[in-house]
């Protein structure tokens, strides 16, 4: 699993890739929660996610809830097919803020 | 079932059990964490039949120590008894120790009678004046057959028939 945070103007971009499974999802959780602590909005790029299981989804959900309570914008970017299937299955595609470009997210920030 | 409740009750149970054990082991069983302060004397008896390790030593009816060990001396067929005397109880060189019985069929214990010498015994020394256990059978037979020998005192080697 790859999981790196990059500072952009006005928000943080988390690039997620590879297989997000039971072994790695606690690292994902820590990264998301750590990033949100800085008080910046968070956009998670999921273009390179080849597999995500429900523990990964759970980490995304927890991040979403944390962002909501601290009134931060929290979005998912370029969701890969593999990830989209799981999101649809768990009916979370209707809950998360899904974006197809960084600009879309930036607009929302203003 | 409440989690905290389970843990609390189990904790109480464990503490209760350990307390009950400590009571038995220390108060009743006589196991002590530290040895009671005192010193050990040695005495040789012809017969101590019935005496046990842990038995009590009395002087004037007061408990002044415990029997800490019993060994057999193969050289002269005698019993070697280690007497643990409490601190602060002086034992004179000519003090007399005798094996006695509580009641008619009760526990055997050791009675210490004071001597007259000013010199006191110290740790590891031996008490020479000993009186052995009185055998009930012996007493009865003496009474019946009107044996001429004196009281049931020690140094009688005909105790066993």
């Amino acid at each position, binding site marked *: 699993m790859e999981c790196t945070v990059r500072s952009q103007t006005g928000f943080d971009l988390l690039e997620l890739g590879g297989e997000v499974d039971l072994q790695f999802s606690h690292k994902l959780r820590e990264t998301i929660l750590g990033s949100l602590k800085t008080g910046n909005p968070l956009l998670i790029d999921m273009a390179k996610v080849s597999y995500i299981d429900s523990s990964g989804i759970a980490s995304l959900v927890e991040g979403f809830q944390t962002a909501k309570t601290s009134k931060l914008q929290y979005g998912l970017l370029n969701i890969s097919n593999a990830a989209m299937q799981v999101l649809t299955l768990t009916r979370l595609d209707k809950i998360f803020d899904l974006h197809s470009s960084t600009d879309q997210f930036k607009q929302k920030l203003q | 079932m409440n989690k905290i409740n389970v843990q609390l009750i*189990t904790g109480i149970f464990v503490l*209760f059990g*350990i307390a*009950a054990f400590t009571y*038995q082991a220390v108060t009743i*069983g006589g*196991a002590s964490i530290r040895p009671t302060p005192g010193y050990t004397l040695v005495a040789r008896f012809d017969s101590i039949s019935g005496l046990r390790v*842990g038995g009590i030593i009395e002087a004037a009816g007061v408990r002044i120590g415990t029997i800490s060990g019993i060994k057999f001396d193969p050289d002269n067929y005698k019993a070697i008894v280690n007497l643990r005397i409490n601190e602060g109880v002086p034992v004179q060189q000519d003090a007399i120790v005798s094996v006695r019985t509580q*009641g008619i069929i009760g*526990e055997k214990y050791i009675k210490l009678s004071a001597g007259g010498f000013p010199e006191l015994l110290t740790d590891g020394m031996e008490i020479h004046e000993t009186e052995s256990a009185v055998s009930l059978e012996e007493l009865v037979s003496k009474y019946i057959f009107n044996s001429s020998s004196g009281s049931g005192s020690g140094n009688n080697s005909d105790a066993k028939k």
Partner: protein
Amino acid sequence: MASIAKHVESLGAYCITAMEQTGRTFNMLLQVLWELLHPPYRFYPIVRQMYFIGARSLTLIIVSGVTIGMVLGLQFYNILQRFGSVELLGAGVALGVIRELGPVMTALMVVGRAGSSITAELGIMRITEQVDALECMAISPDKFLIAPKVVAGLLSVPLLTMVFDFVALFGGYFVGVKMFGVAEGSYWNGMTDAVEWQDVRLGLEKSFVFGVLVTLICCSRGFYMHLTKAGSQGAEGVSSATTDAVVLSSIAVLFSDFLIGALA
């Protein structure tokens, strides 16, 4: 002739079953030991089982302990009074309770209260495929189900025995001192003089052995229910396995009590 042969045959079959069961129980002990030596170590399940086997038996143990102490006090007083040595009452009650009755009675109470339900629980888990479900989740039933119960038995039975002994001494005290007027000092001093650390230790050793023996037998009868004749009988099988477990572990307690007494 034929009927004699048949009897001999059934005796043989019985012996083979008994050997198999003993073997399985022993095997279970080895499994439990192996699991206990390997991580992960979990303590909460043991606490939970100690609550069930130990803490919940406390009332029963206290009531029966006091009763046994009172009975001993009464009986010993009647006997000792004839010899005029009622001052030995404390010693008699204490030795009887600490060396023999405490460990044995406690173990039998645990068999009846906790042992039977251990067998029933495991038997039901077996017939409703709960044990299989555990296996399929890659969770060792030995670690998850059996080990906490055996450890809890090993710890709870001695603790219960100590409680039993403690209250029994007071039961004897109540009858001897309060009812019959034995001198209070001679009751307690007689006890202190007569009981040695070795006696307490013997009682304790017995109760450790009983604790393991009882939980192990009850666990193995329930857990391996499917391998016995009872296994194919569903609910009825659970009840017969439970009865078997109670009878067997009671006999095991009494017999090993004799063995330990003889060896010590």
